[in-house]
């Protein structure tokens, strides 16, 4: 990966009438990166992708691709290609002609064109299906046609608009792995739009989480999961427990907090400014907590409570626990790696926690 950003988005704003779909977004995407735009529907991620593709221009701000200002450059003159959510496979053409669609304008000799088409079909696992018509293909196959059709043009950037949302779970997981492998082998920058946090985490080098037309956080998958920047990001990605707390002291690079749920605790000072008596939120992932039957001494920090609800998922079990101390309900995820027995509703338990697992959000 080189340091030169292939895509630079500078203060992009997009308005549709009174509605602001994108609100001052700035973003650099590196060459060869697998980058995801993640957020709930209506957050502006698809709008941003369409601006990069050239379907309309930003109301304000600029988009540069490979260092060139793309303002006023229509989609057919941009070095990007897109895989549409509906795949947009041309129904009047067979698979090979779909893949050759963009090549036809380049005036290549027929033999060379056929070779490129066959290579592209091989790459996406559709060898020998060139003569099939679009309505003879399954959803997964149509998506591969859309991929081959875009990749055969060797774009600088491949844009993917929710490409896996229409597939069933099994096929979706298989395509996640394949897309990642494909991206590594062709070395093209991929920009993926998705509302599925798991999809973004498993496939991406970096992820931008968007809400209400703004970017909340840009980070790699692990950092995003372990150190969410805001409560909204923490809520959107994975499960999370939130506990209210108040700052009581800030000294020697450490902050002391008081919480109704877990008492007084001292944590390393975060970068953000904290004032005394400021209300903050402590977040902890359910899988970073442990649960044990009452009486067992776990050592370290423990909270007593009662099981309020149980959900069994096979590989994990999710317990809702009402804490005796304050009545707060927290959620604990337990791995079933030891085949441990299920705890009954109402059973007294002890929840173990580690201060290092706490994330401080303000």
């Amino acid at each position, binding site marked *: 990966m080189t340091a030169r950003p292939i895509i630079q988005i500078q203060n992009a704003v997009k308005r549709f009438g009174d509605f602001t779909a994108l609100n001052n977004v700035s973003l650099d995407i590196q060459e060869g990166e697998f980058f995801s735009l993640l957020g709930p529907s209506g957050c502006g991620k698809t709008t941003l992708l369409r601006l990069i593709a050239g379907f309309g221009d930003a109301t304000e701000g600029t988009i540069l691709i490979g260092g060139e200002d793309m303002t006023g450059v229509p*989609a057919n003159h941009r070095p990007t290609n*897109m895989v549409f959510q*509906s795949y947009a496979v*041309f129904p*009047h053409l067979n698979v090979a002609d779909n893949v050759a*669609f963009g090549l036809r*304008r380049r005036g290549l000799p027929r033999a060379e064109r056929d070779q490129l088409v066959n290579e592209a079909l091989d790459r996406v696992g559709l060898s020998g299906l060139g003569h099939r018509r*679009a309505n003879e293909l399954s959803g997964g196959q149509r998506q591969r046609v859309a991929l081959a059709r875009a990749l055969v043009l060797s774009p600088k950037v491949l844009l993917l608009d929710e490409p896996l949302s*229409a597939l069933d779970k099994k096929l979706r997981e298989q395509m996640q792995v394949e897309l990642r492998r494909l991206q590594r082998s062709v070395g093209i920058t991929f920009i993926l739009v998705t509302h599925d946090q798991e999809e973004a985490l498993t496939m991406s080098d970096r992820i931008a989480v968007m809400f209400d037309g703004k970017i909340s956080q840009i980070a790699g998958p692990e950092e995003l999961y372990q150190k969410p920047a805001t409560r909204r990001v923490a809520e959107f990605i994975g499960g999370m427990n939130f506990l209210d707390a108040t700052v009581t002291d800030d000294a020697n690079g450490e902050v002391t907090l008081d919480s109704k749920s877990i008492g007084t605790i001292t944590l390393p000072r975060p970068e953000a400014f904290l004032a005394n008596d400021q209300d903050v939120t402590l977040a902890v992932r359910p899988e970073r907590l442990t649960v044990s039957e009452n009486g067992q001494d776990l050592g370290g920090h423990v909270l007593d409570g009662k099981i309020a609800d149980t959900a069994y998922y096979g590989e994990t079990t999710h317990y809702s626990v009402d804490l005796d101390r304050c009545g707060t309900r927290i959620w604990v995820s337990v791995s079933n790696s030891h085949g441990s027995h299920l705890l009954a509703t109402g059973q007294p338990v002890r929840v173990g926690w580690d201060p290092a697992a706490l994330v401080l959000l303000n």
Partner: protein
Amino acid sequence: MRLNALYFYAIAYMVFLYLPILFIPLFSFNDSTIVAFPLQGFTLEWYGMMAGNEAMQGALWNSIKVGVSSAVLATTFGVLGARAIVRYRFFARPAITGVIMTPLFLPEIIVAISLLVVMLQLGLSLSLVTVTLAHTLLAIPYSMAILMSNFEGFDQSLEEAASDLGETPLGAFFRVTLPNVLPGIISSLLITFTISLDEFIVAFFLADTEPTLPVYIFSQIRFPAAIPGVLALGTILLVASFLLLTAGELLRRSSVKRLQLKEDAGI
């Protein structure tokens, strides 16, 4: 018992509707100038007589001119209107759609008289041109209905995909949009041509001295000797209309089916 009553009703309905029409081809092969049972024998004489009938051939030629012109005009407006209504959300869209579709429900005699008044007021002399304009008006709703179902099935992202793959807007239209809506356009041409071909009242009011086929047929009914020839002509019109409408509907169905290619298929 209830089922039997319904069954009987359906049979009676079909007989009442279609049996009189079937008499037309039947008597067109009957070897007698009198249209009555019993049948006298089989003949192709009435069909042969058409070859020498210049007035009838003139009327046929008029009908074809009017039919082709109004089919092309109605389908052109139909393409523009259907695309706008399906693709864009604009002021008073439902009301405008309603106004365009209204000729479908207006009594033709009212349309014919009002058009006659308007055209005379405008100082237009009656001719095949006025008939063509009126037929275009009557055929536009049919064209719109056919093409709207066509455009509704046409995924807008197909045009965007063409553009994304390097095609110019004009190129995208010719390489993607047109091939996909072409069956609908042909279907609209066939059906609007048939509507014009069969239309009598408006053609009767708005034509001057040049009759279309239905007007010619009406004028011949006064002469008993001409009736078998009219029956033969009617049979040909019947068969032609049936073939054109069937072809049009088959094309429309196949194109809608092909375009409604959603991502619902499994592996």
